[in-house]
Every structure is written in structure tokens, then in C-alpha cells.
């Protein structure tokens, strides 16, 4: 084994070629099927309405108000953190823009100011989470109260209504039958996809989400990355204020947008982002933003009242997570309970047998490919292995039976 010349250079190239079948059943594709299914349903049930001019556009527009929050939330969840203060940041940013417009500041600096306020709020969260090692849930629950509290203090019961006119245009108009808000959302989405999947920054997010300690040992400044992500989230909340205020018809009061953060999180989870961090793709939440818009609209058509539509949101969230959670561990647990009567000895025996059979099957596969053997030799060898498999199975069955009886 020490003779280097004998060791052939191993072929390590990526052997998994693109598989169309696997492409079709991945989570993001399933989301697309759901989206199509809802559309088909609408088309068939309400053809008149569905094909009426402006219907689809207004459905999409109705779901875009929180879309920038979704994008930012992808990054935060990717780290394994969470940010429930985003709706409050959004309103704070909107207030900053509105107040500066009132004060006569020109449109561009006023809008930028809103986004900067968002970024500062995000930085505040980020510093507490990354550099003071406080849990993100706690930090953002409190800053949620804090930021909204600031809005309440400043606005009290007043309503700000002096906002740039492009806010309304963004939320309500189309270019060539395509809603502007959708175009902007998709453009932002492409940026997020590229950053997450094609850049070093995105790779760092996956690394931190899966194993922050090992990431640090790879020479990456975990704290700085966390801070950056929260700042990005804050900026996206600032941008979301444009979408949101536009949808609200250009008015802002201190009680608006409560609970929007939870919608954004739900959309991300439905989109396949794991809340434990490090898993999921950016495409998913973008598709599920649209799914949510269509779903809520469809439920509205079915006379499901707005307040009870949230039941759907809740079930979707739970079922989406459960499906993705259904991993080996839980299956093994269920198997242990049902099949093996909670007897770990039986479980161990069956697992061992399954493993031995697996190994034998691999051997069979290798024999089949082996070019050096003659066909008769092959057949003989395979036969031998197969008889071994049968023997193992039989033995396992008998032992299992014996153990179960013993347990009784």
C-alpha cells in the first residue's frame, strides 16, 4: 500500500450529469407547478374574470408590496438568524422619507434618506446580533417595538401623505401589460440570485448557515458578514417602503404594516429556505411571492374572507416545512415505532441486514461492469451474491420474529 507508483490517479471529476428527472421534481419546480395549478384553476373556474384586461396585473401588484422584504429575508434566514423587525423598519423608513418631503427636501435625497434610515436600523440589529452575541429573535423582537415606538412617538395619530408620485406609479401601473412593481422585483431578484449563488459573499452565507465555527477557521470574518446581511436587510426594508407606501395610496400612519414581517418569513419558508440556515435557493421565495399573491386572490374569489385566509398561510407554512423536514431521522423514528415495536435491537438488526444487502448489491453491480470476467463467471458470481441476499433476508426475518416474541 506504500508503493506510490501502483496507486492510480483517482478520477474525481463531477460525475453527476444534469438529470432532467431530478430537475423536474426539485422544490422550486414544484412551486412553479403550484403557481401554474392556481392559474389553471382560475382560468377554468372564472374564465371571464381571468382573461379580463388588468386582472392578472392587479393580482400580481397586490402581492408586490412586501417583495423586497422577502429578498432581504432570504439572506437573514440563510445565516440561521431571523429578523422580525423588518415591518417596523419599513414604516420608519417611510416616515423618514415622508417627513423630509414635508420639509421640502427634493425627491431623490428624501428617498435615499429613507433607505439610509433602513440601513442604519439594520446596522443596529446587526451590531447587537453579531458583536454582542445576542440571539437574533430577541434583538429583533425588541427593536420591532423600539422602531415602531419611534414612529408612534413622532407621528402619534398623524398621517403622512406627501410622497413622491413615482410611488403610486410603481405600485399601480404597467409597462406593456407588465406591472412595473413586478419588473423591479424581478430585477432585484436577479441581483440576489447572482449574489447568493454565484459570488463569494453568497458562498459565505451558506458556510455560516451550516457551520459558523468552521467558517471562522476558514479565515472568514463571520461577524462582519452577519452585520452586512442585517444592513442589507435594513436597506431592503427601506426599499420596501416605496412599494408599500405606493400600495397604500401614498399615506403612512404608525399602525401600518403590522405583521408583514411574518408574511415575508412565511414566503421564504414556503420558498424552501431553511430557518436553521444554510439551505435553500433564492429562486424559491421569488416564485412563492407570486404564489401567495395568486392564492390570496383566489381565496378571495371563493368568498373566503380576508381574515380567514390567514389559516391557509399558516397551513402552507407548516406543511412546507414538514415536507422538507421529512428526513431520514424522522422516517427511522417512525419505522422504529411502527415496524420494530420500539425495540432498538430489532432496529439494529434490520439496519445491519439492509446494509449488508446493500453492499452485496453494489458488488453485483461491480461484477456486471467488470470487463475481465467471462459471462458465465459473471452469472455464477451474481448468483452467489443473490443467494447470500436471500439468506440474509430470511435470517433477519426469523430473528426479528424471535425478538418480538421475546419482548411479549
Amino acid at each position: 500500500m506504500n508503493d506510490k507508483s501502483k496507486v492510480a490517479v483517482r478520477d474525481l471529476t463531477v460525475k453527476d450529469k444534469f438529470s432532467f428527472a431530478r430537475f423536474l421534481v426539485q422544490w422550486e419546480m414544484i412551486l412553479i407547478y403550484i403557481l401554474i395549478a392556481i392559474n389553471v384553476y382560475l382560468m377554468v373556474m372564472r374564465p371571464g374574470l381571468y382573461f379580463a384586461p388588468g386582472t392578472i396585473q392587479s393580482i400580481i401588484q397586490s402581492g408586490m408590496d412586501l417583495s423586497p422584504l422577502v429578498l432581504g429575508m432570504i439572506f437573514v434566514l440563510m445565516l440561521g438568524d431571523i429578523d422580525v423587525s423588518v415591518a417596523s423598519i419599513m414604516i420608519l423608513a417611510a416616515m423618514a422619507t415622508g417627513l423630509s418631503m414635508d420639509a421640502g427636501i427634493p425627491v431623490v435625497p428624501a428617498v435615499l434618506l429613507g433607505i439610509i434610515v433602513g440601513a442604519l436600523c439594520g446596522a443596529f440589529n446587526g451590531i447587537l446580533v453579531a458583536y454582542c452575541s445576542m440571539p437574533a429573535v430577541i434583538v429583533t423582537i425588541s427593536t420591532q417595538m423600539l422602531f415602531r415606538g419611534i414612529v408612534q412617538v413622532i407621528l402619534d395619530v398623524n398621517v403622512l401623505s406627501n410622497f413622491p408620485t413615482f410611488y403610486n406609479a410603481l405600485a399601480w401601473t404597467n409597462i406593456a401589460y407588465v406591472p412595473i412593481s413586478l419588473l423591479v422585483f424581478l430585477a432585484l431578484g436577479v441581483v440576489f440570485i447572482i449574489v447568493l449563488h454565484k459570488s463569494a459573499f453568497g458562498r459565505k452565507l451558506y458556510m455560516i448557515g451550516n457551520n459558523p465555527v468552521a467558517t471562522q477557521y476558514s479565515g472568514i470574518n463571520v461577524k462582519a458578514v452577519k452585520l452586512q446581511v442585517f444592513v442589507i436587510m435594513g436597506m431592503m426594508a427601506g426599499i420596501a417602503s416605496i412599494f408599500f407606501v405606493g400600495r397604500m395610496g401614498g399615506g403612512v400612519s404608525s399602525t401600518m404594516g403590522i405583521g408583514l414581517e411574518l408574511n415575508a418569513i412565511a414566503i421564504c419558508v414556503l420558498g424552501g429556505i431553511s430557518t436553521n440556515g444554510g439551505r435553500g435557493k433564492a429562486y424559491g421565495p421569488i416564485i412563492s411571492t407570486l404564489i401567495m399573491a395568486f392564492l390570496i386572490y383566489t381565496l378571495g374569489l371563493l368568498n373566503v374572507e380576508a381574515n380567514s385566509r390567514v389559516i391557509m398561510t399558516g397551513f402552507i407554512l407548516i406543511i412546507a416545512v414538514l415536507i422538507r423536514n421529512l428526513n431520514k431521522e424522522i422516517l427511522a423514528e417512525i419505522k422504529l415505532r411502527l415496524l420494530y415495536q420500539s425495540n432498538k435491537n430489532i432496529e439494529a438488526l434490520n439496519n445491519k441486514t439492509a446494509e449488508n444487502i446493500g453492499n452485496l448489491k453494489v458488488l453485483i453491480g461491480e461484477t456486471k461492469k467488470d470487463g475481465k470476467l467471462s459471462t458465465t463467471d459473471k452469472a455464477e458470481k451474481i448468483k452467489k451474491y443473490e443467494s447470500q441476499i436471500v439468506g440474509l433476508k430470511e435470517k433477519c426475518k426469523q430473528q426479528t420474529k424471535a425478538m418480538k416474541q421475546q419482548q411479549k
Partner: protein
Amino acid sequence: MGNYILELKDVVKTFGGVTALDGVHFHLKKGEIHALMGENGAGKSTFIKVITGVHQPDSGVMLIEGEEKSFRSTNESAKVGIAAIYQHVTSFPDLSVTENIFMGQEIKNKVGLYNWKLMTQKANELISSLSSEIDVSKPMGTLSVAKQQLVEIAKALSRDANILIMDEPTASLTRTECEQLYRITERLRDEGVSIIFITHKFEDMYRLATKVTVLRDAQYIGCWDVDKISNQKLIAEMVGRELSQMYPPKTAKPGDILLEVNHISKEGYFKNVSFDVRKGEIVALTGLVGAGRTEVVQSLFGIMRPDSGSIRLEGKEINVKSSMEALRHGIGLLPEDRQMEGLINELPIYQNVSSAAMYKFNKGALLQQEEEIKNAIALCQKIQLKAKDISMPPSSLSGGNQQKVVFAKLLSCDLKVLILDEPTKGIDVGAKYSIYEIMNELAERGYGIIMVSSEMPEVLGMADRIVVMRSGRVTAEFETTGTTQEMILEASLKQKEEERAS
């Protein structure tokens, strides 16, 4: 055969392809201290877990007082009087000592409520026979490891255990604490408790045990009377071959001084540590677990920051504030715990390999995955990684090959100094050899290598120079030629004798 309280015959246990126990036998008499020895990864820990019912054997028989038993949980083994004190103390750090002792067998009053008063009183009685310095009302997490172990012993006593399993209890104890533990263990034996004492210190075995069973590479090697087996023979049995065969021949010649560590200190961890490394040289940093070796190398790598002292690389003083800077200066660390610190098991091998040097693959704002893959394949082929392909997750690999992935990660950076913290921990013998080959080849290519290791044969077989640490200080430095295990052991225990005298 009836005089055995515990007997295991031909026990086999595998974990998804890795055999942890392969036909192990064991006999324990009543009132006997039986040492169980073997190298790291020999299967000792799995062995206890099988006895206590944490794991279930795939096959084999276990007899308790001549009666066949199989446990499905620790509760069942506890009922027949088996108690274990695990290597990593498995306590509830936020709960009080009293509660830790009585967890699962609390004393209740007539209404079914806890009788804290009586429990505290009993806990005090149990503890005071072992140590006079433990406040039973304090949370477990505030005690030292040695004291936590005493609490675990008290817990076992409170359950009237007649078989007590102790998994490397002396690994992180000071000399005086060890003595105390020895006395308590002997007293328990005299009271009729049968004890399985797992250790890899010969001292423990000679001091306490009458019998010794050796495991190696998951296999049963043999059982001897302690006074009838020589030290040499025992080592040979544990290691499995003559030392000279274990290590590849060295080819590198040490060159100029590469890294100098001058009097670095970190409060609470180490003091005044100095040593240097030359190009192409392997320096071993050894000593007992808890001597501060890991903390020293973490300080060189920027995970910790020393309070004082200086580090010079190629004659220039450097200030390493983070792992990022360490890598930029050319210092890389292969961490001790490869699962927690070395690998990101969910990402493909090639992404792990390039993770420390992503800047190399940046083109504009984008990462060039093709380049990453090409680079990773080249590196991994060089160190003969056995994997299906480079896009598999590291979790699909064996321990030795996982370690090679971490090596490849370091090699993808432009390094001068390689720090390897227990590079062969938990790796089987064959894979160890190829890790050693890699180390020698790297030394030949001019890397300066610092190897932290607790395994003395490895230290003597691989290093050019040996630095020994004890309780946060360097106590000796040897050229490897002419150094013996006894000399290293003496240096790693040296000051403890003084401590005892004082």
C-alpha cells in the same frame, strides 16, 4: 464461570459501514478494577455505550451474573446496577449538584412533590464522603471538571451501582486530583463495586487495576493480569506493530528559522510560551490534554489573541488578530475537531477545499466554479483522496479522507506554516499512515509544521523536535533522536511532583 458479574462475548457493532466493535470479549469479576486500554478510536467508548444500553450490539451476548441481558435504554441498565461516567461529563450544567445527583430518582413526599430538604441532606452526605469542597446547591456548570466527576460518582453511588464504568476519568485531572480519584476508586472496590476503568495512561492501570483488556481497531486483542505483562508488550499489543513500521521514513532537511514564538501568554490558558519552527521541520507540541497546547496554536492562528509576547514570521514581527490575517500571513491551522471546526459537511468537497481561498477564484464579482473544481481535483488527487467525486459532501467520507479534505483546504492557500492539531485523532491505522506521508511530503516542500499530539509514539515517530507543555507552560524541549517516551512523560508531569511536594 459463575464468578463473573459481567461477561461479553463476541460483541459486534457497526455504524453505517464503520465497524466500531468487532467480536469483543470482556470478563469482569466482582470487586475488581479492570482496566480497558487502547488507542483513540479503538472502540472503547462504543464498548461502554453498548454495556449501558445507549447502543445496541448488532450481534453477540452480554451476561450479567450469568444471565443473558439486552438493554434497550440506559434506564434498563441502571436498574441492574450499571452506572457509567462518560468522558465528556453528561450533566445538566444549569441544574444544581443535588438535582444532578438525583435526576431520575428524586425523593418525593406524600403528595408527590420533591423533598428538596431531604435530597440536599442526602446529597451532602454522599458528596462529603468524596470531597469537602463541593456546595451541592451550586449549579453543576460552575464546578471544575474534576469536581463534576466526583458528582457523577456520587450519582452512581446514590443508585447503588455494583458495576461502575469510568471513561478516561483522569484525562484532564491534575496530579493531586488523580490521587484523590484513585483513593476513591479503591475504596469503592473495597466496598464490593466492580469497576471498568478506561484509560490510556499506564500509570492509572498500574496504580489501580488487577486485569487489563486491550482493544485495537475495534478488535479484541487480549486480557492479561496487570502484574504479568510488561510495558513493552502492552504497548505493542495496543499499537499493533513495531513503532518503526508505523511511520514513513523522513526525507526533509530542516532549513532556516521560519516562525519564532516569543514569550506569548494568555491569561487563564498559558504563560511565557516560546519555541521556533524551521523550514521543512516538524515540531511536535505535546503534553497532557488540557496543558494549553490547543490554545497556543489557536493564538498563532488568530482565533484567540495572546495578551503579551510576540510572533515573528521569517524574521518580521507579525500581529495576528483574526484567522483571516493568519491565512494572509501564511499560517494555516488544521483544527482538532474536524466535524465542528474543519468541515462544512453540507457543502460539496470542492467548496470546502476552496473555502479558505475564495479570493483566488473571483473574476469580477463572480466565483468561477469551474476553476474551483479543477483546483480541488488537482489537490485532492495529489493527496490521494478516496471519494466518488469532488461534488460529494465530506460526510460521505471516512474519517481519514475527511481529514484529507481539510488538508486540501489548507493547501489551496499559499501557506508557509502549517499547524496540525491532533491530525490523526479518530483515524484508523491505515489512513494515519497516509496522513503521515502527506506531512513528510509537505515538510520536504519547505513548509514549517507544528503538530499538536498527545500520542507519544506519533510524536517520536514524526517530529524532528519535541516541545512539551504542562499546565500552560513549556517544560522541556528535545531533539527527537535519543528521546524516549519516559522523558516526555516525565516532562509533561514534572511540575506536578513539585506541586505535590509543596
